């Protein structure tokens, strides 16, 4: 886990934006080898989008070969409703940059068959070669995407009912009328996020401090779905000073010192090069247990040996070459005496006698 702490929220936002830009540039995406970016909505990532747009307008980055997947979308409000996540993405990001509309993927909350929409979304991610970098924000209760407390850590893209608290909180965007607030949403699952090659989460403000503390200092817990990041090989959390209010001073100092040392060594906690540059894309190994697992509803409890623990593709680590297996050979082959190879026994006199008797 990398934890980057900045004094101000703006600095945290621009750190994330610059990090994403760095990643894309390093990746050097092409039409056949695009960079696949997972995107969130909400107030935390707003600053990130703002910086990304500024950098695009300054000509420092192009999103031409970037494929995007969004985390979630409400069910049952018109796509162009001002509060829909389609509108959010359009207003804050897509309308300002050169993302190709064919490369944009957002869950359709008005699909006739929501379950099929979710299955298809997972398939689309897979077809795109998996997500290179999933950017996320969190809720006060530590939820990532709409995976609210109690969501299975093995969950995939699915229909999710919103918690009453969330509906109440959202009513401020819907003329304070609870009736108008969507009650359901489509969201990627915790497992979907964990399967991306890198996860970057931005956490801003004192209200999120408790969630950050649970995620960093405590164990993996489905009541704080963000804590599942501990199981990911390359997670990074970027936060501002306010968000660290609940952390121990020791923890904050520890992560700050790591960052400092890494920078002094000219080594900014970088990812393995196979992840940074893309090809060859490591195959994300997904154990398909049965058809039911693909379906967004989990019909049967998952086996105790959770796939979470096996989610890490081992191939991305440099594997030491193993000593070759023993293939026994004859010592005689190694001695340079002519005709020795034809000797059948170590006692040539006996052998010669035998040869002579045969010849007689």
């Amino acid at each position, binding site marked *: 886990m990398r934890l980057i702490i900045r004094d101000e929220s703006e600095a945290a936002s621009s750190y994330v934006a610059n990090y994403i830009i760095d990643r894309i540039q390093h990746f050097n995406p092409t039409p056949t080898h695009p960079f696949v970016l997972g995107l969130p909505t909400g107030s935390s990532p707003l600053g990130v989008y703002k910086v990304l747009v500024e950098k695009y307008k300054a000509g420092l980055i192009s999103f031409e070969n970037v494929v995007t997947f969004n985390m979630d979308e409400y069910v049952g409000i018109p*796509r*162009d409703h001002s509060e829909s996540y*389609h*509108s959010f993405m*359009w207003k804050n990001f*897509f*309308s*300002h940059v*050169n993302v*190709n*509309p*064919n490369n*944009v993927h*957002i869950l359709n909350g008005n699909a006739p068959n929501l379950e099929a929409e979710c299955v298809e979304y997972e398939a689309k991610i897979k077809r795109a070669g998996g997500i290179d970098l999933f950017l996320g924000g969190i809720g006060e209760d530590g939820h990532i995407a709409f995976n609210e407390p109690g969501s299975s850590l093995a969950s995939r893209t699915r229909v999710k009912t919103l918690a009453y608290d969330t509906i109440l909180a959202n009513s401020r965007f819907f003329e304070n009328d609870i009736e108008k607030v969507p009650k359901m949403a489509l969201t990627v699952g915790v497992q979907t996020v964990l399967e991306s090659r890198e996860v970057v989460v931005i956490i801003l403000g004192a209200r999120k401090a408790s969630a950050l503390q649970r995620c960093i200092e405590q164990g993996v817990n489905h009541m704080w779905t963000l804590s599942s990041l501990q199981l990911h090989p390359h997670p990074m959390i970027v936060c501002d000073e306010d968000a660290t209010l609940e952390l121990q001073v020791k923890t904050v100092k520890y992560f700050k010192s790591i960052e400092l040392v890494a920078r002094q060594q000219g080594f900014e906690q970088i990812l393995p090069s196979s992840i940074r540059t893309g090809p060859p894309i490591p195959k994300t190994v997904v154990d398909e247990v049965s058809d039911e697992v693909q379906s967004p509803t989990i019909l049967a409890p998952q086996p105790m040996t959770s796939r979470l623990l096996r989610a890490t593709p081992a191939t991305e680590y440099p594997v030491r070459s193993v000593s070759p297996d023993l293939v026994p050979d004859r010592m005689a082959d190694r001695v340079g005496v002519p005709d020795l190879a034809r000797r059948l026994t170590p006692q040539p006199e006996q052998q010669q006698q035998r040869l002579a008797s045969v010849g007689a």
Partner: protein
Amino acid sequence: MPHSLPSSPKSTPKNGGNGITKFTNCRILKDNSLVEEDLWVNSITGKIIRSQAAFYDDFVLPNQVINLGGRILSPGFIECQLNGAFGFNFSTLLEPAVYAKKVREVNRQLVRTGVTSYLPTITSQRSDIYKRALPHLGPSGYRQVAEDGAESVGAHVEGPFLSPTKNGVHNVDVLREADTFEDLEDCYGPTNISSEDSYEPSPIKMVTAAPELGRMTELIPEVTARGIIFSVGHSEATYEEASKAVAAGATMITHLFNAMRPLHHRNPGIFGVLGMAESLPRPYFGIIADGEHLHPTTIKIAFNAHPDGFILVTDAMHMVGLPDGAYQWTNGDCTNHIVKKGPKLILEGSDRIAGSSITLIECVTNFLRWSGATIPQALRAVTSTPAAMLGMQGVKGCLDDGADADLVVLSEGLGQDEAELVIDEVWKFGTKVFSR
């Protein structure tokens, strides 16, 4: 509707693109404010498009992106009273082919002043001029050819049913009274005031008349039933008579304060209907902000009385855009001369103001300087307010999705330490037609 389809090969984009232009880094006029937002227009349909839907549904990206560097993007201006321009007077008797050619020339020139839609105005004339000229002045926007320049949204007939004592420079000899609708049909020509089929509107869009003359007030519903705006003007109407006209359906006042009784504290006259005393809808009203027709303070009073009805008009004559001097003017059945001296037009041998020779953008700048109004308020007076008066909300005078892509790019200059708006570019139906 066939009108919404591309009707001319000119409207297909060159270089085979999708015809979509995105304006960015601009402040666009939305309601009462300038907001930083992008605007997408399609030159094939000639409309402003809903960019979000185009992106998500049609997977399109704009063909060209225009960075306006923070300048103002306003809807194209709408002029409700223009008697002529660039040497051509609409109240002229000419061969049909020549007249039509002159109108086309005016349209092409006029668009350069930021006026993308207008009501060509005919002053009080003999019947034959109406019958000959009006067929050329009807709505011309259905063709959707950007290169044609400004479009007519229908003619404005200012007269001849006017009060002889408030004639201004109109020839008293041609003024008439109407008792029946047939009198109007007889004067303008029946096909010019009533359209034969409901899909094609009649050439006349607005009538200015004095409601107290003859039985004009009772004829107002017959006029408005044909989709024609009834405007009160050149009138001796008292407050009561004006209120009756408004109750009957008059929705506009032609050049408020000019050619009508002044505001008197015992009888507020036509101006009084802008008060809220009666439970009547308040009409829109035209204001000539040229510094000659009205005192700046009078304009402020009118604006504050009813900001949502405030429309800036020029009442410009054909001398607009020409050098100073005396110009011939057909007025009814005699020919007079109008002396142009700067922006001032005086009827030769009198001290009567004979219209103006100001452009609409100059009126907007004047209004800004005099009233302390905000730029959005001033721009509304030549965009959304006239569009609402004409019943063209959502089509003209706004930057909403689906509206016609008639646009003006404005710079905020500082001429003589005072606010000034300068027209940099004009776009008609999503195509650039003028650039400074």
